[in-house]
C-alpha cells in the first residue's frame, strides 16, 4: 500500500491498531505513582465497635467554626478520621449548604503547623512544658488585673468565659474586623433590634451599599440561599450594588455603580430627595436635621459628591418606588468612615421611607442572654490597646483572635503589649499574637472539641448549634477550650463548676437540664442535640419600632493631594480576616473577582493605571501616613478611579508555612481614624499615594483566569433590553 493511496478508512484502521496497542501497553506499565505496598502499616481494631465497618463512612453532626455565622455541619468519619464536611440540612442558618471556608476546616484540623504542646517563655524563647507546669505558672501569675481578647464567642463557652471573667474581675474584649458593628448599632437605634431578620427572599429589589451578603456579610451561606429564592421567584428579584470596589455580591448585581468612597450616605440622601421631590414621599415625621439633609442633597449636588450620574440616581429612586418590596442594606464600605454611623443611618432611612420595616426587615428572635453571642468589633480592639498602654493589664488572654495581625500599625499595639506583664495565648497555631505570648496553651481543633454556638444572625428560628468532636484528638497534649476554661475555673475555686470532670460533662448536663418551656422539639434535649446537631428553642420576637435618628450633616474629609487615593481593604470569602491564610485549599482557590492565587494584589482602575504608567503584574508602593506596603497591580474596571483595592488576609509574619511571608496586609497601613459615634475603626477612611517600584525580580502575579473579555465568542449570549422585555415580560 503506497503512502499516496492510503484511504481514510485504512488510515483509521492503522491508527486504531497502533493507538490501541500503545494504550494497552500503558495500562500494564508499572505505576508511576507511589504505592504503599510493603511500606504503610495497617493496624486492625483491637475490638471493633459494632457499627464500624472499615471503608464505610458514618456522618456526625457538628458546628462550623471557620467564621462566627454558626453553620451546622455534617462530618463524614471513616476509620476514626474525619474526611469530608457538608452542611447540616436541619440547621436554620445554612440549610444544608456550606461555603469553601467551612469545607476547608479539614485543613485547619489536619494542618501540619498545629501547636502540639504547652509552651512557656523562658530566656526569651518559647520552650515546651507540661500542662501541670503551664497551669501552675498561670495560677501564680493570674492574680492581677486581667483582660480577655477573643473572637465572637457564644453558647456555653461564653458562659464559662463570663464566669471566669467575673471571678477574676477581668475585662472581655471580643474583637472582629470583618463584621457589621455600625449596621447593628443603627438597626438597634432606628429599628429597636440590632439584628433584624432580613427577608432577601421576600424582596423584589435590593439596593446594597457595599453589603457583601453573598460573600462576607453576617451570614453569607444563609443569605446565598435566600438570594437563590429571590432570583427564582415569579418576579425575578433585582439587585443593585453601590460600592467603590466590586465584591462577590457586586459581581452578581444587575446594576453595579462605582461610587466615590465614603459618599454612600450622600447617595442615599439623594435618593430620598428624589423620593420626596418626584414621588411625593412624606418626610414630615423625620427629625428636622434629617429633613434638612434630604433637601440639601439634590441630584446635581449628589452627582458632584458621589461621582454617580443624575440618571443613575433617578433610576435607582424610580426602581425603589415602583418595583414592589425593596430592601436597602449597608456594608463595611459605608460603615468604615469617621461619619460611618451617619452614612448607615441615612441608608437605613430609605428603608423607613419606603415602608420596608415589617416587610423585608422583620423583628428577629434572640438567644437567652447567657448564650447569646458576644459579637466582636474593632472598638474593642482600640479599647484593649488603650488599656494595655495605660498599664492597666497584668495578664492578657488571647483566644480565637489575632489582634497583633488585625491592629493597624498606627494603633501601636505591639509596643503597648510590652506593658502587659504576662500574655497567655489559647491557640492552635503560632500566629502573630501567639508568637508574642509568654505562655501558649495548645487547643484542640474545632473538629476535636465540644461546644455550643448561637450565630449573631438568626433566621427567625432560634437554634443552638452543637459542636461535637468528629474524631479523637490528633495530638494528645492539646485540650479543648471548654476543658481549659473548666480547669481555670477550678483553679479559682468557682464552686458551681467544681462538679464537672470535663467540658463534655458540663455541656451534656447543661443541655439536658434545659427547661422544658425552652425545648421546642421536646424529648431528650441531649440526644436531639447529638443526633440533629441543633437544639431548637422557643423564642418570641416582638415587632420592629422604626424611629428615625437625628442626622447631622456628615463632614467629609477634604481631599488630600499628597494622598489622592482611597484604600479599600476588602474582605473575601476565603482568607477572611487572615485567619484562613494557613489553609492551602483557600490559598489555591482563585479569588472570586481577580482569580489571583497565593498572593496579594492591588486593584487599579484602567485610568489610574494609565496615570501611573503601570500594567498588570507591575509592582506599586502603597503609602499612607501610617505606613507602606508593596503589591502587584491588577487592572480592573470594577473599581472607582479614586479607589484602590487590596484584599485582606495575606501578609503574615508568622502563622505557619503556608501563610508566612506571603503578600501584604492592608490593615497594617490604616490611619488611626474612628467612627465618631460608635468608636469603631474606620477601615475605609485611609488615603494613600501610589508609586511604581521595581518589585522583586521574577515575582509574578499568578492568576487562574486569563481574560475579562469573551473575545467575540459569545460565551454569554446577550440580548437588547427591549427584545428581552418583549419576550420575557417586564424587565
Amino acid at each position, binding site marked *: 500500500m503506497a503512502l499516496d493511496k492510503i484511504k481514510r478508512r485504512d488510515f*483509521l*484502521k492503522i*491508527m*486504531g*491498531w497502533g*493507538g*490501541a*496497542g500503545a*494504550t*494497552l501497553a*500503558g*495500562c*500494564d*506499565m*508499572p*505505576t*508511576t*505513582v507511589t*504505592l*504503599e*505496598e*510493603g*511500606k*504503610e*502499616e*495497617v*493496624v*486492625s*481494631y*483491637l*475490638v*471493633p465497635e459494632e457499627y464500624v*465497618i*472499615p*471503608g*464505610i463512612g458514618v456522618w456526625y453532626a457538628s458546628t462550623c467554626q471557620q467564621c462566627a455565622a454558626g453553620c451546622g455541619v455534617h462530618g463524614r468519619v471513616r*476509620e*476514626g*478520621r474525619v474526611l469530608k464536611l457538608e452542611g447540616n440540612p436541619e440547621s436554620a442558618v445554612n440549610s444544608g449548604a456550606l461555603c469553601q471556608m467551612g469545607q476547608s476546616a479539614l485543613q485547619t484540623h489536619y494542618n501540619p503547623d498545629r501547636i502540639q504542646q504547652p509552651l512557656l517563655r523562658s530566656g526569651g524563647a518559647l520552650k515546651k512544658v507540661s500542662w501541670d507546669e503551664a497551669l501552675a505558672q498561670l495560677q501564680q501569675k493570674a492574680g492581677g488585673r486581667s483582660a480577655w481578647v477573643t473572637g465572637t464567642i457564644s453558647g456555653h463557652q461564653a458562659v464559662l468565659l463570663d464566669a471566669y471573667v467575673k471571678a477574676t474581675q477581668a475585662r472581655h474584649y471580643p474583637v472582629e474586623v470583618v463584621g457589621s458593628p455600625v449596621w447593628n448599632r443603627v438597626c438597634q437605634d432606628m429599628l429597636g433590634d440590632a439584628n433584624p431578620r432580613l427577608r432577601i427572599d421576600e424582596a423584589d429589589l435590593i439596593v446594597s451599599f457595599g453589603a457583601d451578603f453573598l460573600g462576607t456579610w453576617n451570614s453569607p451561606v444563609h443569605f446565598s440561599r435566600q438570594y437563590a429564592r429571590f432570583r427564582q421567584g415569579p418576579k425575578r428579584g433585582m439587585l443593585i450594588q453601590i460600592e467603590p470596589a466590586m465584591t462577590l455580591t457586586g459581581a452578581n448585581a444587575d446594576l453595579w455603580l462605582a461610587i466615590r468612597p465614603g459618599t454612600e450616605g450622600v447617595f442615599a440622601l439623594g435618593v430620598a430627595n428624589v423620593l420626596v421631590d418626584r414621588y411625593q414621599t412624606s418626610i414630615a415625621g423625620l427629625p428636622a436635621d434629617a429633613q434638612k439633609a434630604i433637601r440639601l442633597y439634590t441630584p446635581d449636588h449628589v452627582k458632584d459628591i458621589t461621582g454617580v450620574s443624575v440618571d443613575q440616581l433617578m433610576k435607582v429612586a424610580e426602581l425603589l418606588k415602583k418595583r414592589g418590596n425593596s430592601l436597602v442594606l449597608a456594608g463595611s464600605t459605608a460603615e468604615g468612615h469617621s461619619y460611618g454611623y451617619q452614612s448607615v443611618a441615612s441608608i437605613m432611612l430609605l428603608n423607613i421611607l419606603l415602608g420596608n420595616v415589617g416587610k423585608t426587615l422583620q423583628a428577629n428572635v434572640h438567644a437567652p442572654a447567657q448564650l447569646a453571642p458576644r459579637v466582636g468589633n474593632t472598638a474593642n480592639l482600640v479599647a484593649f490597646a488603650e488599656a494595655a498602654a495605660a498599664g492597666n493589664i497584668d495578664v492578657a488572654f488571647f483566644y480565637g483572635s489575632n489582634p497583633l495581625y488585625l491592629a493597624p500599625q498606627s494603633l501601636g499595639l505591639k509596643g503597648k503589649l510590652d506593658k502587659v506583664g504576662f500574655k497567655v495565648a489559647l491557640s492552635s497555631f503560632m500566629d502573630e499574637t501567639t508568637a508574642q505570648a509568654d505562655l501558649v496553651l495548645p487547643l484542640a481543633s474545632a473538629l476535636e472539641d465540644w461546644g455550643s454556638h448561637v450565630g449573631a444572625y438568626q433566621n427567625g428560628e432560634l437554634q443552638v448549634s452543637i459542636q461535637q468532636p468528629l474524631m479523637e484528638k490528633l495530638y494528645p497534649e492539646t485540650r479543648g477550650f471548654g476543658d481549659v476554661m473548666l480547669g481555670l475555673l477550678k483553679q479559682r475555686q468557682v464552686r458551681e463548676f467544681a462538679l464537672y470532670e470535663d467540658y463534655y460533662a458540663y455541656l451534656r448536663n447543661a443541655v439536658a437540664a434545659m427547661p422544658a418551656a425552652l425545648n421546642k422539639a421536646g424529648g431528650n434535649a441531649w440526644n436531639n442535640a447529638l443526633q440533629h446537631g441543633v437544639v431548637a428553642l422557643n423564642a418570641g420576637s416582638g415587632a420592629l419600632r422604626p424611629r428615625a435618628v437625628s442626622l447631622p450633616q456628615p463632614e467629609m474629609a477634604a481631599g488630600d493631594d499628597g494622598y489622592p487615593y482611597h484604600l479599600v481593604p476588602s474582605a473575601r470569602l476565603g482568607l477572611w480576616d487572615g485567619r484562613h491564610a494557613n489553609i492551602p485549599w483557600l490559598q489555591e482557590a482563585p479569588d472570586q473577582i481577580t482569580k489571583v492565587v497565593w498572593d496579594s494584589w492591588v486593584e487599579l482602575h484602567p485610568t489610574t493605571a494609565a496615570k501611573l504608567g503601570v500594567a498588570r503584574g507591575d509592582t506599586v508602593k502603597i503609602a499612607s501616613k501610617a505606613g507602606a506596603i508593596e503589591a502587584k497591580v491588577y487592572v480592573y474596571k470594577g473599581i472607582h478611579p479614586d479607589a484602590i483595592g487590596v484584599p485582606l488576609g495575606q501578609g503574615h509574619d508568622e502563622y505557619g508555612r503556608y501563610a508566612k511571608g506571603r503578600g501584604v496586609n492592608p490593615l497594617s497601613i490604616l490611619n488611626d481614624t474612628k467612627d465618631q459615634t460608635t468608636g469603631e475603626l474606620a477601615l475605609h477612611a485611609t488615603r494613600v499615594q501610589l508609586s511604581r517600584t521595581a518589585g522583586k525580580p521574577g515575582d509574578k502575579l499568578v492568576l487562574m483566569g486569563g481574560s475579562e473579555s469573551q473575545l467575540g465568542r459569545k460565551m454569554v449570549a446577550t440580548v437588547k433590553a427591549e427584545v428581552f422585555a418583549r419576550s420575557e415580560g417586564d424587565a
Partner: protein
Amino acid sequence: MSAMQLFFGRRLLSCQSLRSPGRSLLLPLGFVVALFAAAPLLAEVPNAVAPTETYSGDQVEQPIEFPHDIHAKVNKINCMYCHTYARRSKVAGIPPTSKCMGCHTVIATDKPRIKKLTEYWEKGESPKWKKVHDLPDYVHFTHEKHLQRFIFDNKDMKVENASEVCAFCHGEIKDMTVAQKSRPLTMGFCRRCHEQNKGPFDCWKCHK
C-alpha cells in the same frame, strides 16, 4: 495516613479509556492477548472468566508470620470469616485482634506465633501489619461489588468456594503463609477482566 485499617487500597492505575474509536478494532487485539495468556479456567467459579496474568510481588515482612495456608487450606476456613468486611465494604479489612483471640485463647496456644499474638493482645495493641496490595488514590475499587457479582448474585456459585473468587486478584493465598502480591493489579489487568466478564466499562466507574 499511617493508622488506617485499610488492607487494600481502593484504587487503580493511570491510563486512558479504551472505549474509543471503533471498539471493533480492539477485539482482535484482545484475542491476541487472550492467546498469549491462555490458561485453564478455574472450574469452581461458574459464569466467570478468571484472569490469569501473574506478577511476582516482593515478600513483605510482617510482625507475625501469619499462615494463610493453615487457616484457609488445612482448616478450610472461609476467607470471609476473617475478612468479614469484604462483602460489606470497599475494603476487606484486617480482622480485629479480638477475632484472632476468639479462637486462639484455646487453640494452639503453645505455638510461638500465637504466643506473640497473645502478647500483643495482653498489651492491648494490634500488630502493625504491612500493606501488601495497594492501588493508587485515584482508583475506586470495591470488594463489595465484586463479591456480589461473583459470589452472592452468581447462580450455581457455592459460598464455600469463595477463595477461588478472591484468587482472581490475590492469587492462591491459601498456599501462602504471609500474603504476597501475585497479580499485576494494573489497569490493563482490571480492564481485560471487566471485558471478559462484562463488567462496567465507563471511566468514571473506577476513576471517580
